[in-house]
């Protein structure tokens, strides 16, 4: 097991290296200068700016410098925010996004799994249909519509919750719900499918024959096995939730990373794009590893040895 994890970590580093390199070169293909009003400056002035940020070197040299600095933990300085190290920017902005993502993930997974299990246990009854309906609607309507409607009716019309901004727990409720709609539907749909399948399998019949109570059957035997595909899907979803949603952050005025990232792409703020992307990639590979390890824990039939069979 330890050896396996070690091996995976080595792979992770290689993956990150490739992601960083590819992103770096792809980004350099996007035309336009990273500076505001660059074109109206005189040539001398342009050279001064390019020199300051080392943008006059050939791209491979820039790449080399960037990689060396990255290893040292220096992700460069933002172009759009004067004199702001990217690491500082990430630290400031990741918090709210991660909190929101985590809350949405937990809420979404719990509600989703409950809905899915209920639907499977009461297959083809009105409960099933209701759960399916909730799950389907949750992913059928774009989140900005949910967010917009909730903001207008719950916050503006009813005045139950604050309209926007990020100042305390009550400010996180609406964005969390809006963000949780998608994980709810994903979890519910996958859970139902898996549960239905598992409940029809031989070992459940066996458990029934042995007189296990239906609660025991659904929780101890079925749920555990049905969770695998759900975990596969929810893992990466958690990363994408935690790395911020432009739409939700923008509508609720959350000072998160998602909105910042999209803006950086639009203004060619290379260091911020790179830094954010590397952060996303790190999170993603870590979650992938965790998901793979979880397979083994949840389903003993899968051997973690990387399939040496």
């Amino acid at each position, binding site marked *: 097991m330890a050896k396996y994890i070690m091996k995976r970590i080595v792979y992770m580093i290689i993956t990150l290296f490739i992601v960083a390199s590819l992103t770096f070169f792809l980004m350099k293909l996007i035309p336009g200068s990273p500076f505001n009003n660059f074109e109206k400056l005189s040539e001398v002035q342009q050279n001064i700016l390019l020199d300051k940020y080392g943008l006059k070197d050939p791209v491979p040299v820039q790449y080399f410098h960037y990689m060396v600095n990255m290893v040292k933990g220096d992700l460069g300085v933002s172009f759009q925010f004067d004199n702001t190290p990217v690491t500082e920017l990430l630290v400031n902005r990741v918090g709210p996004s991660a909190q929101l993502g985590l809350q949405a993930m937990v809420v979404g997974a719990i509600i989703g799994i409950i809905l899915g299990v209920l639907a499977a246990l009461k297959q083809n009854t009105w409960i099933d249909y209701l759960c399916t309906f909730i799950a389907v609607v949750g992913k059928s309507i*774009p989140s900005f519509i949910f967010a917009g409607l909730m903001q207008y009716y719950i916050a503006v019309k009813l005045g139950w919750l604050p309209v926007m901004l990020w100042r305390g727990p009550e400010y996180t409720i609406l964005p969390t719900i809006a963000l949780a709609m998608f994980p709810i539907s994903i979890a519910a749909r*996958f859970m139902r*499918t898996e549960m239905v399948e598992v409940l*029809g399998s031989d070992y459940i019949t066996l458990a029934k024959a042995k007189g296990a109570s239906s609660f025991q059957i659904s929780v101890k035997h079925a749920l555990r096995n049905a969770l695998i595909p759900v975990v*596969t899907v929810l893992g990466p979803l958690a990363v994408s939730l935690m790395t911020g949603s432009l739409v939700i952050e923008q509508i609720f005025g959350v000072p998160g990373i998602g909105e910042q990232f999209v803006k950086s792409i639009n203004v060619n703020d290379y260091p911020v794009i790179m830094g954010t992307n590397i952060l996303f990639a790190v999170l993603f590979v870590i979650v992938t590893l965790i998901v793979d390890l979880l397979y083994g824990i949840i389903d003993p039939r899968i051997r973690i040895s990387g399939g040496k*069979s």
Partner: protein
Amino acid sequence: MTTKENTISKDMFVPAHVDPAKSEKIAKKSLNFWQDSWLRVRKNKGAVICLVILVVLIIMAFVGPLLTPYSYDTQTTKYNNLPPRIQGLEDVHWLPFDGTLTRKDGTEYNAYEVRKVDAYYWFGTDNLGRDIFARLWKGTQVSLFIAFMAALVDMLIGVTYGAVSGYLGGRVDSIMQRIIEVIVGIPNLIIVVLMILVLKPGIIPIIVALTITGWTSMARVVRGQVLKFKNQEFVLAAKTLGASDLSIIFKHMIPNMFGIIIINTMFSIPNAIFFEAFLSFIGLGLQEPHASLGTLVNDGFKSMIAFPYQMIIPSIMIALIMVCFNLVADGLRDALDPKMRD
């Protein structure tokens, strides 16, 4: 009584002719896999109704724009932001087709009368005075196209990739999984922006960007399933019987995961439609005057409070398409999964 018994003589019985060759004969016409599945899908009324609705929507996506006298891109700015109004239904006030709008203070007024417009826009007009009915069907066309393309790629690349990766295992699996991580690691927004530069902005860069990154989740799910099945008895049995790797993957394993594949495909359809809507939200979507459900919903969202119908109509369409796809998917899943046969 006994006499009666006696009346049945032994010679009344003739031994049945047993043809050993016919002992395995099945009276019912033999059905192939798909016919069989269709039989089962048919039993699920919800799925059938949804299938019919989907077919109607697809037909309407092409026929709809022809039903109205207005073209999807004809602008009449004088008649912009008119609410829905339908001949015959305009006097039924509880229906939202009477051409009235509500002011901020809650009073209602008939926009057609106030602005002296003698026309019927069934679903109203947008801010350039374009007919939303025509745009809706045009948009449905485009969105379904994007969605089907994305789903197709998902199925083709995702399933194959995931199955091969999971089945072969070992180093190949490791490398293939790392490739997925790399692909997922590169933000698709960067890819979209690049595509817009390489190709002209429009539908193609969107599809390409979806294609490049969309299949990875399918591949991961399929791989997970293959890992699960790999050591199970039926696969071992097939192996022992000398089945080739290809036939094990495609004949034995994949039918067992139809359920999960179809569910996942059904997720890639809304994902595709939403990704396009998201691109519209940040301004990288389709080019004017073309419309998709994504751009329509997004445009409507901006007028959510002043002209709610501009958001509600395309939202209902998206929701309808999604619900139908899901219920059809459920029906198909139940029908296709060999373990679910009754």
